[in-house]
């Protein structure tokens, strides 16, 4: 069991740094539901910052990739994501088609290099 979950420290970290800071917004939403204007400027700013943080994480994974992705040349990582994005736009915003095209470029590139 301890191998499956890891040590109690890792689990505590998950609850304190992952579960609670995330869940609090759902419970606040439950508490306040009914009285918030969805279009308020504060929420627009919050959404922009949240989007930009996620964008930063996407960039982090591509620029400083973890594990097996680190062995792939940078040009191929960026190229595959760019190809996926082009396919996404060309398919009138189909996430699935974009993901599949990006993956094909990645696999063909790896095989070819």
């Amino acid at each position: 069991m301890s191998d499956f979950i890891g040590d109690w420290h890792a689990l505590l970290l998950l609850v304190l740094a992952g579960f609670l800071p995330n869940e609090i917004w759902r419970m606040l939403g439950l508490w306040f539901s009914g009285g918030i204007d969805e279009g308020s400027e504060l929420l627009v700013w919050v959404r922009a910052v949240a989007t930009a943080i996620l964008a930063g994480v996407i960039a982090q994974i591509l620029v400083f990739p973890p594990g097996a992705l680190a062995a792939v040349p940078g040009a191929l990582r960026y190229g595959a994501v760019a190809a996926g994005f082009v396919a996404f736009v060309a398919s009138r915003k189909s996430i699935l088609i974009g993901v599949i095209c990006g993956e094909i470029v990645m696999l063909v590139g790896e095989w070819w290099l």
Partner: protein
Amino acid sequence: MLFPALDSPKWQSHPRAFAWGMRSVGSTVLALVLFATYLGIGALAHDSRFSLGWVLTSTALVWAGPAQIILISMLGSGATAVQAAIAVTVSAIRLFPMVVSVLPLLRTPTIKRRHLILPAHFIAVTLWVECYRLLPMVPRERRVVFTTGLGCGLVLVCLTATTVGYTLAANLPPALAAAILLLTPLAFLLSTARNAKHLVDVLALVLGLALYPPVAMLHTGVDILISGLSAGTIAFGVHWWRRRTA
């Protein structure tokens, strides 16, 4: 997707309403995208040296893709718990307006707030979108049960995907493992791009991508927070300025 008519006696049964909710998972392409995303999260957790049980627990408890990849990649690259918690909580603020806007669809005059805790926990972008699509076909008194079934179905899909992604990353040749790790940035970039309907969101996405590399050269330990806060605020500034001069 066919449910019985709203006034059909078949809706009397709670288990049946739960099962219809769960079965609705099969009616959405979003479930496929979610599957791909969680394959990536499982693989990311493996290559960031977390245990399978840990990442499965995170899928069940956190139940928000962006928060999970932020948590895994920050902790995996040596950030402290406080830094990770700040980044996670900022990414999770978007759940607040989602919960606020979905719950009125589930409310009945007699419902207790505690009955809504589980449906509120399941709310993330997929459930939020699907509730708007499906709930009008469900009688109001059964919506909590139905939504709980839908949420459980989506969590099951994602637990499966997390396990498959983790196992594949552990056993596949490196070339295929790299392709699975690429699913995370790819799926999140595209789903964020799809949700970015206003200029302010598009700008936040583009600036957030562009600002991270230069900020990362400063090695502050809170690079993600600095680049995200500045990119988001600049995007909001442009939005505010345009609205003022419009």
